């Protein structure tokens, strides 16, 4: 498969999850595992452009695919992309653990729906749990990243 544009190969047990392959075999530890039932979304990556919970996919299923992870989101010189920058600007993260999955999930939304409504953002992120932010600033960051004016949303 290719991961963040780089060709990688590996031989794993059939039961190895994509999240395990990314973390333990490729040392791409930005993809996090927060549950074991496919509920929390901390492990969301892109597989052939689609947001996927990587704990719910076998590594072997992604063979030959193009996989994108949080490590591949910023520019080569480290500059944050617009969505990442919006998360920082609007304090859309605290402990940071859910953040990679949140960013990857939101990126997939904005790809399909460049100017989502608040309700659409909330509905789309329903599969990504955050325990720190109460979602306020995450939703605000995603709306801001889509170019919408968020100045009217409750201060700070």
């Amino acid at each position, binding site marked *: 498969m290719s991961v963040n544009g780089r060709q990688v190969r590996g031989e794993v047990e059939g039961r190895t999850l994509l999240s395990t392959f990314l973390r333990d075999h490729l040392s791409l530890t930005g993809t996090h595992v927060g549950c074991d039932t496919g*509920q929390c979304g901390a492990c969301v990556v892109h597989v052939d452009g689609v947001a996927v919970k990587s704990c719910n996919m076998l590594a072997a299923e992604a063979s030959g695919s193009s996989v994108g992870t949080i*490590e591949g*989101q910023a520019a080569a010189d480290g500059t944050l992309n617009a969505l990442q920058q919006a998360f*920082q600007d609007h304090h859309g993260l605290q402990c*940071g*653990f859910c953040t990679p999955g949140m960013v990857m999930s939101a990126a997939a939304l904005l790809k399909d729906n460049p100017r989502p409504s608040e309700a659409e953002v909330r509905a789309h*992120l329903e599969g990504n749990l955050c*325990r720190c932010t109460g979602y306020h600033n995450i939703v605000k960051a995603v709306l801001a990243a889509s170019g919408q004016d968020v100045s009217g949303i*409750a201060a700070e």
Partner: protein
Amino acid sequence: MPKDSGIGASSKRREDVRFLTGAGNYTDDINIHGQAYVHFLRSDVAHGRIVSIDTAAASAMPGVVRIFTGADFEGVGGLPCGWQVTDRHGQPMAEPGHPVLAQGKVRHVGDPIAAVVADTAEQARDAAEAIGVEIEELPAVVDMKAALAGDAARVHDDLPSNLCYDWGFVEENKAAVDAAFDTAAHVTTLELVNNRLVANPMEPRVAIGDYARATGESTLYTTSQNPHVIRLLMGAFVLGIPEHKLRVVAPDVGGGFGSKIFHYAEEAFCTFAAKAINRPVKWTSSRSEAFMSDAHGRDHVTRIELALDADNNFTAIRTETLANMGAYLSTFAPSVPTWLHGTLMAGNYKTPLIYVNVKAVFTNTVPVDAYRGAGRPEATFQLERVIDKAARELGVDPIALRRQNFVTEFPYQTPVAVVYDTGDYNATMDKLEEIADIAGFAARRAASEAKGKLRGLGVNCYIEACGIAPSNLVGQLGARAGLYDAATVRVNATGSISVMVGAHSHGQGHETAFPQVVAEMLGIDESMIEIVHGDSSKIPFGMGTYGSRSLAVCGSAMVRATEKIINKAKKIAAHLMEASEADIELKGGQFTVAGTDKSVAWGDVTLAAYVPHNYPLEDIEPGLEETAFYDPSNFTYPAGAYACEVEVDPETGKVTVERFSAADDFGNIVNPMIVSGQVHGGLGQGIGQALLENCAYDPETGQLLSASYMDYAMPRADDVPFYAVDHSCATPCTHNPLGVKGCGEAGAIGSPPAVVNAVIDALQSGGKTVAHIDMPVSPSRVWAAMNG
């Protein structure tokens, strides 16, 4: 005009860049060469006697290094409890042992029976399935009332009953409180449940033990809010490792909310096993394991009575609470329903007489300990619910009833020991009425009703005791630790600064906010200052982060250390400028001599300290590094007023939070953006408790019914609205140098009663005489209340 740096600026968080690019360093991201993996075989019954454990087949499985059972830990200390409560009769609480691995009995679903260490995590898990365990099942003790019955099975055979303690506070007031009820014009009574919760930080716990045989040093990497506390507890009480041979590292930690304060068996196991097999040993919790091994929160059953005189003044409060301890005493469990709960029962009100009775109970459930707010949400919920009920019974406005009874003069000595140093509860209520647009509620209700929905408004106040805690006071109350904190300010030769702090940041943004304070004091750029935390080998002995204490306690230590730095730097500057030390002023990173144009830059002074060629070596030491320990003289008392508006669908009972507003008094604020974020997060958890979350056990078998996110309803993005938060009403704390109070727990403390008050208001508006619904206020409970 908002500031763009220093105290009061919403500086963007510097820690975000690593978290947004996948470059964080969480404990599970750490792998040590040659590490083995442990899988814990956990009890699948709530209560039973271990008849036999057969590890022979499992030991022969591929990759298995060694299998440990309770027998391997005989002679090793158990997990200690850090707080001893004294009961109504002057007797110490019952304090059963808590072995690292079960010995003789299992006492809750998830109690670890055996631990398989293998070359890979998969091999360890496979082998654990091959262990043969025979358990003679015993009756499960689940319900607290039943647990206290004379014929109940006993969780601990060596204790006379399942009662941990029967606590009365203030015991000397009991007769006067009873008398006040006898003469009251009106008494409102409410029985309620404060539902059991699971903290659920998104990062599950992880522990890695490492042992260096050549030096005898052990290192534990762990998901902790307080590495020094873990080093003290595990080193001194469990494994007998002196501090200089034990290092505890808590790197990036993915949220804690209290659940990562405590010393857990898995930490002790990995440290112990690494030495035993002379290999690093790693454990990563699954979420299911987290549900059955992380300490739970809340789980109180309470009866509260409020007495009022004929003018609706509160005259007395009397409460009886059963508090679940679970199967063992977690690290700070006994303090939560007592000193963190009873002392807050006065709330924001001048009730002269209060008596709180708490019976703490052992059950065959996971241990219960501090979770965001810890005792204070339980106090706030019952008090603010009973006040709302009283207002309804008396036919008075609930806001007016609260205002009438507010404490308005400070300092205020409550009848429950604590002294509020400052506050202005009318100001936060005024602000709340403004930001919540309470005047516009009637129109919004009409709009909801026009579409067939009921709409309710719920308001409440809260107060909390934060900045934990004055060591001499808590020592008298049973704490077995000091609760100061510490900071070392190391100024480097070129003027940059490293600040080593005892507080631990796991989402709170200390790496951004703490430098704002030092930068303000020195007049230099924030970017010159870095915060170092989370490694006992690098930081001074501070007690970590919980109880909204980091800035109030550790921040105060940092201020004191920085003051020492300034004093010494002024001496050096005076020497360099050949002036009197008393005439030296520091402003904007420049030392000047008052009344002259002489000046010397910050960097020149710091360089002189480390290259002391022209330096008063006979008077002062070279170098520029200072440490301070700070022990607070009182708690801090953040307070505020919250409002929730809900819509209730009468067809289904579904409750939707339409608006939520919070007006808080946190004293002075260092980073408003971070403070708002802390409140948002607390509100999310409080709304979660009120509407969604419930940790449920089968009452007969003690099986944990909510052991995954399939069954435990976490709040999601579409369960909550945008919040309106305000913290402009600031009465600075009078006794710490920054005037700060702490903001981490307020949202979770203040929000559940507002939500429930709003639901009751909505149902009443629909003509339903519903007095109370227990949390979580689920559609089925609402529907049943409306149609029952």
